[in-house]
């Protein structure tokens, strides 16, 4: 088939490239071993590796400068594309912040930006629960929000609703929900031990999670403020189809980057497996 021939010729050329580099490395390796043994080889390999990473670091530094410039242009309204945001598409926004960088002043400024953009429902997550411990302080300093209650429906309202979450609302909440289901299973008197038989459904699991306070709304978009794109344990049950964007460290957050991330989200189309 045409597709298979194309695929195998591509694979062949890539294998040749890989083999070339492995051969070159092996030849140099053998030559260096003859001259001065393993130590020189290891030092040279390490130096090459470090040099490669310095180059990558400089490349990303240049990218960051370009992004900062673009972000400045967006926040000044000079890029037409980002002028109109269909913010109504964003029903629920989650923000994951690296616990080591959780400065409440930055968090409050970020919330103010979100309020200015018209975002109505926000979940703030950090793994260690530092934001949870500071929630009273944050709600006091940022007077445009109320605390999200478990049974709140996502309606349009004047004040932003704020939810605070941490790692204990994820896996540990699932363990608690499992025990709720287990008690129901014992009380039902069911003695099924057949391996393949289904005992619970996903909706029952969802209900059990709600009982233990671990099943808030599923965010449409999750913004990660940290050194790397990683959700850091945000409750797994809630991020099945959530768009995840990496925003960089919180201390270098930019208003223009926030607009760009929300704009990119509003342009996405999901198939949900179909």
């Amino acid at each position, binding site marked *: 088939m045409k597709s298979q021939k194309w695929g195998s010729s591509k694979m062949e050329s890539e294998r040749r490239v890989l083999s070339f580099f492995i051969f070159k490395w092996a030849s140099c390796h053998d030559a260096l071993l003859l001259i001065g043994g393993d130590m020189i080889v290891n030092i040279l390999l390490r130096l090459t590796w470090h040099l490669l990473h310095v180059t990558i670091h400089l490349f990303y530094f240049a990218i960051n400068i370009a992004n900062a410039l673009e972000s400045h242009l967006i926040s000044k309204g000079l890029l037409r594309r980002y002028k109109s945001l269909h913010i109504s598409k964003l029903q629920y926004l989650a923000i994951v912040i690296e616990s080591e960088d959780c400065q409440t002043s930055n968090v409050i400024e970020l919330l103010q930006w979100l309020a200015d953009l018209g975002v109505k429902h926000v979940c703030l997550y950090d793994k260690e629960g530092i934001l949870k411990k500071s929630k009273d302080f944050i709600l006091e300093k940022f007077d445009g929000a109320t605390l999200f209650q478990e049974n709140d429906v996502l309606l349009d309202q004047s004040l932003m609703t704020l939810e605070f979450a941490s790692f204990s609302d994820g896996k540990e909440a699932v363990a608690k929900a499992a025990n709720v289901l287990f008690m129901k299973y014992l009380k039902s008197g069911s003695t099924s031990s057949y391996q393949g038989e289904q005992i619970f459904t996903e909706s029952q699991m969802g209900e059990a999670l709600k009982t233990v306070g671990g099943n808030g709304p599923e965010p449409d978009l999750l913004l990660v403020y940290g050194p790397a*794109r990683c959700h850091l*344990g945000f409750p*797994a049950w809630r991020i099945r189809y959530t768009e*995840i964007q990496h925003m960089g460290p919180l201390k270098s957050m930019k208003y223009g980057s926030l607009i760009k991330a929300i704009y990119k989200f509003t342009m996405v189309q999901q198939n*949900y497996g179909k």
Partner: protein
Amino acid sequence: MDGNRRYAKRKLLEEGAGHDVGAMALLNMIIYCHELGVKYITAYAFAIDNFRRKPSEVQKIMDLLKECMTVLAKIAKHHPIKVNFAGNLELLNTELRDEARNLMGATAKYSKFVVTICVCYCCTDDIVHSVEESCREKHYYHCYIGDSHDDDKDDERPIIKLVDIEKNMYMAVIPDPDILIRTSDEHRLSNFLQWQTCHSLLASLSTDWPEIGVWHLVKVVLDFQQNYDYFVRKRSLA
């Protein structure tokens, strides 16, 4: 492994041909990972949600899965690779299910390089399945230690712990991944390993899956190495 259909449309290939090239790309990627020294590779081949696609497309993917099993079985005869199939295999037809189980059994003794193919898998189904298994285990324990319907004996009632749930998951056969790659510029997990990727780099590539090559893999590995200390610190605190 996103982008098979988009690739086929862009290259004006016949319907389903994108999946053929995608399967080749997966086999290539397994070889590249092996040569780069990666020990565990997991691929999301078929989601439970994918059963909602056209029956002809679902059948095409099942046929490709069978071919991949045959290829992996041949490779396993000459190279010590372990093959796992993670997911609700009861949703597969009998022939595929038996072939998958035979391949897992035949390669169970190897451990140096592990290939896991997720079939009929989704993370929320994995969580529910592991809660069910944990309930069955604890129910057996409950019966064994006798009648605990007496409410005064709450402290003797078996409790499901997080470690019970984690050991009963389909994905418990391998460690949590360091990197999760998604192609076609998609930025969501689509119910794949969100439980296991708490401390993983989520890498998004703009290329479609059939066009993925060794340099994409090298780029992602280098990105991971840039933040290696951070990920090690996060895992050690977990």
